[in-house]
């Protein structure tokens, strides 16, 4: 570990970055005051990130819950534009993200591909914003004099645990379909992926998401997943790259308030999949008489 070494080739001392979590629209450290060292390949020190506590997660749930009503009632057109703006912000910082991803061990080509894919994925889900309801909703031909239709509605607060193999892409692939549906999300990034996640926070914070719609935590998976699964005010849990033990634990714990649980495999072919949006949506069916 070489945290004391600073790149001080010339006369100017470089300015290091403090990585903070995004919560309720603000950049915060863990309330616990704890931090984690993040090392790159070969033991190169990348910096400190927060080690989020269970209390941080609870605070994030409060922030997310506050944001749900406003975000779910935001027009689909505006939600799409905000996601698109996130893509614009990411594109503008592509070279910076490439460097960050390379510092965590990705090759130059892989890092480049990942930043491009993450950006394109935001554009992809931005485009679904005002279309998925037309695919997933329906008008139902009931055999009585009623008008009957089914629409999607966001579940509310969704927790998402990202994998580490694709530090940026896993996070974007998880949160984009969740928020485009009108949910608020609390994500957890771990290991080296936390650095890219905290960088992404700076992109998302400037994309016009209302405060609390996206909350990015980082910390230790085994410390927080159980809390995410048992929290009574979380409506759904999506996990990426969990092992079978964790998945079994989550399924059992989610029974507490019947939060919806979607375990996903680590590397997914299906990043572009509107049915991911549907996962964290409910279907509501409304009846009304037809008559004079």
């Amino acid at each position, binding site marked *: 570990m070489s945290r004391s070494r600073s790149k001080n080739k010339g006369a100017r001392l470089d300015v290091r970055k403090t990585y903070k979590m995004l919560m309720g629209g603000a950049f915060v450290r863990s309330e616990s005051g704890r931090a984690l060292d993040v090392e790159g390949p070969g033991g190169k020190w990348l910096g400190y990130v927060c080690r989020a506590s269970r209390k941080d997660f609870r605070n994030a749930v409060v922030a997310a819950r506050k944001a749900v009503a406003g975000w779910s009632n935001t027009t689909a057109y505006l939600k799409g534009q905000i996601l698109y703006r996130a893509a614009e912000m990411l594109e503008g910082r592509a070279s910076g993200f490439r460097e960050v991803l390379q510092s965590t061990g990705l090759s130059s080509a892989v890092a480049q591909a990942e930043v491009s894919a993450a950006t394109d994925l935001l554009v992809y889900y931005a485009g679904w914003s005002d279309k998925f309801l037309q*695919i997933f909703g329906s008008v139902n031909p009931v055999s009585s004099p009623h008008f009957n239709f089914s629409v999607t509605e966001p*579940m509310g607060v969704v927790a998402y645990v990202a994998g580490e193999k694709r530090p940026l892409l896993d996070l974007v692939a998880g949160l984009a379909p969740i928020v485009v549906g009108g949910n608020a999300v609390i994500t957890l990034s771990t290991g080296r992926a936390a650095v890219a996640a905290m960088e992404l926070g700076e992109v998302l914070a400037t994309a016009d998401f209302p405060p609390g719609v996206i909350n990015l935590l980082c910390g230790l998976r085994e410390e927080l997943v159980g809390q995410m699964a048992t929290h009574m005010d979380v409506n759904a849990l999506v996990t990426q790259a969990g092992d079978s033990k964790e998945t079994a634990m989550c399924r059992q714990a989610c029974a507490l308030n*019947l939060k919806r649980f979607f375990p996903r495999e680590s590397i997914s072919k299906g990043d572009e999949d509107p049915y991911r949006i549907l996962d964290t949506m409910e*279907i509501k*069916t*409304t*009846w009304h008489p037809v008559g004079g």
Partner: protein
Amino acid sequence: MTKTKIATKGLDWSYAPAPESADHFQLKGQYGLFIGGKFFPASSGKRFPTINPATEKILAHVAEAGAKDVDQAVRAARVAYEKVWRKMPGRERGKYLYRIARILQERARELAVVESMDGGKPIRESRDVDIPLAAAHFFYHAGWADKLGYAFPGKMVQPLGVVGQIIPWNFPLLMVAWKVAPALACGNTVVLKPAETTPLTALLFAEICQEAGLPDGVFNCITGAGATGAALVNHAGLDKVAFTGSTDVGKAIQKSLAGRSTKLTLELGGKAANIIFEDAAIDQAVEGIINGIFFNQGHVCCAGSRLLVQESVEKEVVAKLKARMAHLIVGDPLDKNTDIGAINSKGQRDRIRDYLKFGQEEGAELFQTSCSIPQKGYFIRPSFFTKVAQSHRIVQEEIFGPVLAIQSFRTLDEALEKANNTPYGLSGGVWTDKGAKIFKVTRGIKAGVIWANTFNKFDPSSPFGGYKESGYGREGGRHGLRAYLECL
């Protein structure tokens, strides 16, 4: 037979008994387990009686399936899935379902009478709602069997395999249809466990599968109580479990499936609010309240068991409700005049009585009609509570009986706040003549089915299912198919 007397100002209206006859069919004394296309006694030889809750008389004895029987049923379903059903073209699968739908229609009268005898529901409801809807569910899903490729755009679909299904006693045959029709249409095979108090129409349904020539093992029916259900859920050979019943049992099932890849959908309890605004058509709304809570003795997961009435019309609504309730006839389920039949079982009757007690102990005021009820059998008079607080058990917990909790509100926001303040989210109702308000309220209620200016309507093309602790997954419509398909 006694005449039902209705108290009406200055007039003595009496209804002569109008019983539906039960002489056009013969129940067997005993029913076996339906496994691999044939009926067998339980391997343990155990059986249990199913009784008529209106007379407390035994209707028949039914086999009690143990773990060994469950295993045989799951194996039969697996063989049928691998060798026959998954390979069969959807068009042919669909034709079997059409056949079943037709037989349900042809044997409708028998099925309706048995349903009312075994479960206690009024013949008018089993005749006009349960049985026709069950047939409609098969007819609807039959047509899907060869069109599944169109259900989920962009996805390839395939069946899940062997499905274990557990259904409740409130709509015995209709729940068979809700569960079995989509499962079979999607190419799965089924092991079904009906409720222990209402197994008869499920067993008649097994006979109907024989009549239809349904290949052996595609549908299997194992009767028994909780232990049989647990044996089914815990069988490693299931690809999917579908459960309709209480939230507690649903949670227990999810826990017991943790660590297995078995899929699960749950249709659980509810505590729906029926919200009446001052600008509603009050008389229609009162009919809606009556239908919402007294339909099927209140044994309805989506029952409108809470009434939220705007303060300005509270007195009027409560007065009209009392007047309307006085006309409800409680009694013989087989009588065509009966509005409210027998409570499904002694256990459920006692549970409802407990809640009537809890409500009063917690300070709410009970109103019950003074109608006559039969000496024999399990009956509860139509009831409601006023002076109710949001925290009361009768507001938060599902009673599953003819007991309504009435609260008032002043503003729309307050109504929504109260409506959503339970762990459940199955259904809801709103009554107002203002279109914009309807949309605001139907959007604001966190529940899967919302009835606006109507209540308790069902249709095979209409997705049904809950938010929050009312479970997950939908039944009916295109959305319901997803519960029985793998989307690739």
